[in-house]
């Protein structure tokens, strides 16, 4: 909503300075976006200095000038003026500027083989004088310090631009803003002189609002103005509109716009001679069409509120008029419309058709239904004053009468909500100046809400009115007490934070990427999951919710590889989506690492990353979050984006069928499809929501501390065993031989090849044995040795390697 302070003062009697008014507007909830002069076409003309001028290589009369326009670099301008010379200060017009004399718009042009950026102007071209022989010569003394500044000072009045919140329909007119300021104590609302119109005759054009379901119009007021002489608006009106950036069209159109901007009362003027028989306000039928004033043809759907005559549609009520009945300079007779349309109807129609107009913006927020007559009379009086003519009596067709809204307001409510005391006197004064009818009944105010405030429905709305006009700064600042009665985070949230930092501490950079992704990349990781499309994506490559975080990580990995990073470790923790309903999502931590370890390190041998690097980072993380290392179970059923032979799945224990994590090398197909060029790419992912924890705190979970000082012994074994036999099982078998004595088992060698059958492998293990009761004798140890060997051999078919 734009207006000038001068316009505001049509309605507000105030001694406040402009800056005080601006501050006050913001403080009462009418946020000032800007307070500047409207930019003018003349703002483009700059004071400039010719640094050097040379003869044009291909034209004797032209010069190529280097011109200083106050920027870092000079511009090159081809100029034909005889007086163009070094160090001359003159006026420069850049490409895009419009020359006042001939309204020519400049562009970058090629003048006989030399590119010229803009133009140096003569006084005549700028309409400063008739001097057209050469370019303007400015006095060096006066202008030498002003190079690059505007030549023309902008004399346009400053414009207030308010950002009006959707509840404040009443402030979409200057008068409403003045009323608010008056209520805030920034002046007095001016009383307007009563309108004196000599009416002649009645409005004899028949108007009918059809009675049907979903009728979008409840009131339709109109009057006829006959024998007008439409013309350009007078200067005061043009200036008012121009100042706020509106284009004057003709007196009739300008007046309807003016009344809308001034009183928030949209009007529409029809050329009455173009109306066939009479007006019918009805619902549209599907497929009906008309040409609107924006020169577009609209094909309508069902139940849109249309103003029609016998020949068809004239306009969309409250949104836009049609060309068929538009007023022109030759228009003689006008039908002036001032109506009330339901916000919901306006909104539905304009959204379906994609139209936004000033009228629509206002009707959609709720226009004062009691302003129909005022709007007609103010506009008619102005039209008559400017264009002459005779004014008929008004006609208001009514389908539904406006009902006044009443609210009983307990004064104590204000303090209860704001913590601020306000006297009944102050409250009454504010409400009264906002236009409420106030009646006091004990501790309650009986209020009648003004018809221009559709947003005020209940007590709390009254609290807000009083609070914003007294000022939020009057409300105390009660500092909070430092008391905590509940834990801040629950178990899952703690796990989230712990995992995040646990993985980061292993050298991974955390990233945050969109929850949506490109379906093409997502398909590489989606497996059998449902694709969740976004109906209105921001772009076609962000068109689905991600089924896996890897789709985004891979995409950005590629970008970083293209930036010449070779060894990259990064992860994200966030949602993936399994369906399009709330809750069909789960939290996943996905990490990737690519390239070599110890690249170009003088002391360490570099090597490609492999599945066991991924496993190390994953397993360490899982131990850190508190999973039991003895019960974690590893298997090799992984999703299809993992390398089928070099990846694993983790279950929380051997009975559990739900994977809590995957790790491995990525499937080579993905590297190829995503065109990733890297030495190696390993990934892992953890499904947080699937991890189960005991409901106990750590203090209850720690077992008693026991240790043994008896001697430790170590024994090495090498078993030749089936190639496909899992070492995890082998270790389990050994550890179960004697859970008390066997303290640790390490795999220190794996061998396949010469001297071993093709379908076998040799696994070398180191077993630590220690008793908590006594020092073990050689005999004890030998017994255990034999037991280990026999158990392994019997249960696995392995043979001790000799």
């Amino acid at each position, binding site marked *: 909503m734009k207006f000038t302070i001068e316009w505001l003062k049509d309605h507000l009697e105030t001694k406040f300075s402009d800056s005080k008014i601006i501050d006050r507007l913001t403080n009462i909830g009418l*946020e000032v976006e800007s307070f500047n002069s409207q930019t003018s076409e003349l703002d483009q003309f700059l004071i400039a200095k010719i640094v050097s001028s040379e003869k044009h290589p291909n034209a004797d009369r032209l010069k190529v000038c280097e011109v200083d326009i106050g920027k870092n670099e000079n511009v090159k301008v081809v100029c034909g003026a005889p007086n163009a010379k070094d160090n001359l200060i003159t006026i420069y017009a850049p490409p895009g500027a419009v020359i006042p004399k001939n309204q020519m718009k400049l562009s970058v042009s090629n003048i006989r083989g030399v590119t010229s950026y803009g133009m140096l102007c003569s006084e005549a071209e700028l309409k400063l004088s008739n001097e057209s022989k050469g370019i303007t010569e400015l006095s060096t003394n006066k202008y030498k310090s002003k190079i690059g500044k505007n030549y023309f000072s902008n004399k346009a009045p400053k414009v207030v631009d308010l950002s009006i919140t*959707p509840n404040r329909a009443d402030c979409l007119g200057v008068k409403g803003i003045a009323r608010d300021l008056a209520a805030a104590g920034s002046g007095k609302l001016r009383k307007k002189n009563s309108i004196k119109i000599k009416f002649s005759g009645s409005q004899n054009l028949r108007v009918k609002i059809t009675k049907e379901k979903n009728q979008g119009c409840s009131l339709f007021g109109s009057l006829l103005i006959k024998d007008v002489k439409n013309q350009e608006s007078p200067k005061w009106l043009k200036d008012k509109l121009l100042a706020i950036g509106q284009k004057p069209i003709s007196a009739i159109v300008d007046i309807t716009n003016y009344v809308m901007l001034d009183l928030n009362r949209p009007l529409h003027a029809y050329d009455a001679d173009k109306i066939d028989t009479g007006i019918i306000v009805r619902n549209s039928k599907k497929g009906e069409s008309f040409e609107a004033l924006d020169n577009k043809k609209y094909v309508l759907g069902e139940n849109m509120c249309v103003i029609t005559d016998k020949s068809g549609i004239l306009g969309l009520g409250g949104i836009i008029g049609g060309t068929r009945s538009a007023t022109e300079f030759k228009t003689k007779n006008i039908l002036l419309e001032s109506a009330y349309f339901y916000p919901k109807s306006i909104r539905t129609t304009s959204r379906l058709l994609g139209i936004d107009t000033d009228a629509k913006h206002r009707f959609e927020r709720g226009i004062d239904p009691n302003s129909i007559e005022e709007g007609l009379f103010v506009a008619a009086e102005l039209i008559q004053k400017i264009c002459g003519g005779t004014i008929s009596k008004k006609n208001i067709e009514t389908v539904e009468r406006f009902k006044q809204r009443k609210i009983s307001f307990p004064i104590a409510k204000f303090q209860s909500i704001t913590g601020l005391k306000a006297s009944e006197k102050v409250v009454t004064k504010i409400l009264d100046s906002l236009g409420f009818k106030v009646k006091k009944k004990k501790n309650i105010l009986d209020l009648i809400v003004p018809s221009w405030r559709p947003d005020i429905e209940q007590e709390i709305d009254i609290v807000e009115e009083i609070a914003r006009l007294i000022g939020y700064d009057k409300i105390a600042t009660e500092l909070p007490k430092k008391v905590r009665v509940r834990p801040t985070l629950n178990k899952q949230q703690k796990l989230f934070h712990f995992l995040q930092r646990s993985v*980061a501490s292993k050298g991974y950079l955390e990233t945050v990427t969109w929850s949506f992704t490109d379906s093409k990349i997502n398909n590489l990781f989606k497996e059998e999951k449902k694709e969740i499309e976004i109906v209105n994506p921001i772009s076609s490559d962000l068109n689905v919710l991600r089924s896996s975080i890897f789709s985004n990580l891979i995409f950005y990995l590629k970008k970083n590889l293209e930036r010449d990073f070779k060894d990259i470790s990064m992860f994200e923790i966030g949602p993936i989506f399994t369906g*399009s309903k709330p809750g069909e999502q789960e939290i996943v931590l996905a990490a990737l690492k690519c390239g070599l370890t110890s690249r170009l390190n003088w002391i360490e041998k570099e090597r490609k990353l492999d599945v066991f690097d991924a496993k190390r980072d994953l397993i360490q993380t899982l131990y850190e979050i508190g999973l039991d290392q003895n019960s974690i179970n590893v298997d090799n059923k992984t999703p299809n984006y993992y390398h089928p032979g070099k990846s694993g799945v983790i279950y929380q224990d051997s009975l559990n069928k739900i994977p809590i994590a995957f790790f491995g090398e990525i499937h080579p197909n993905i590297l190829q499809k995503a065109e990733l060029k890297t030495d190696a790419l390993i990934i892992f992912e953890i499904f947080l929501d699937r991890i189960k924890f005991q409901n106990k705190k750590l203090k209850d979970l720690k077992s008693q501390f026991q240790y043994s000082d008896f001697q430790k012994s170590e024994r090495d074994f090498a078993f030749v065993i089936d190639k496909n036999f899992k070492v995890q099982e082998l270790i389990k078998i050994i550890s179960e031989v004697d859970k008390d004595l066997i303290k640790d088992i390490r795999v220190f060698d794996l061998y396949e090849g010469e001297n071993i059958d093709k379908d076998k492998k040799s696994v070398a293990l180191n077993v630590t044995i220690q008793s908590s009761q006594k020092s073990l004798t050689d005999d004890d140890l030998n017994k255990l040795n034999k037991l280990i060997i026999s158990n392994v051999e019997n249960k696995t078919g392995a043979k001790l390697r000799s």
Partner: protein
Amino acid sequence: MSDIIKIKEEYLNKLSKVSDLKQINQIKSELFGKSGKISNEFKKIGSLNSEERKGVSSELNATKSELQNFIERKIKDIEINEINSKLKNEKVDVTLPERSFSRGKIHPVSQVIDEISSIFSEIGFSVEEGPDVENEYNNFTALNTPENHPARDMHDTFYLDKNKEFLLRTHTSPVQVRTMLQGKPPFKIIAPGRTYRSDSDQTHAPMFHQVEGLHIDKNINMSHLKGCLNYFIKEFFEVDKIRMRFRPSHFPFTEPSAEVDIGYELKDGKIIIGEGDKWLEILGCGMVHPNVLRNVKVDPSKFQGYAFGIGIDRLAMLKYGINDLRAFFETDYRWLSHFGFDPLDVPSSYRGLSR
């Protein structure tokens, strides 16, 4: 001079000239071996009379221990000398690089969420979360934004079905609805998380982060709202004083509503939060609208309170001098390394929010 003294003098002299272990061991056996000189002297004691025996034996013992001590000292000296001379050859250039390691970092959004949680934890808020996909009711209708309400235009919504029943939440406020529907007042929660609007340019990203705050109890009023936010902003920006302005505004789900500006100044192109004469809009808040309370089955005649919503990314930008919002989500390795936080830098009240 007795033999004993002679031996002592001779060997102390010898020993003082010796410099390697071999020679010392040689001397050791010359003295204390089976037929060593000292051993021989001991053997002689047997042939002495008891009077002589006493004197010689004590002299001999004293000499023995003197020599032994001297030898031990000498051995230690030699060993130390040997280590020292060995070390001369073991010198490496320690300015060579260490074995490889890589540094991980925490994303600024995560760090700031932890900072925010830590601050609100101190005054008794707990953290709640809700799904990213919401239904139309929780995101709009329950929050007093019925269909056809112009306020819906302020949110450019991503929809997941043609009927506009399911959508990506446009704010974290639906967590208010979920929390209140699930429990009984009082409520005192914050809800940080991802939010989405189909809006993308220099200053808008289609996904961003908000933190919602909600405090409902019997006597919570606007002065508590002002106090809570004043406390939060001061703690977050780690300043002692802050200029704040509560400006009336409008949100369908709060009334009275306010937007909050904080004071700042520009110093060498950097924003300094605190006192300057410029205003920066930072959050929206207000008293929870009675219609919302009714929608979530809380009796507005008994309970009331405030809610607020803050842009997390924006807070991070202001606090840590990040200029470009979109860079948060572009996963540029250089950016993540530059703006990321060390994983051990966990914001907490006792060791401070940030280093």
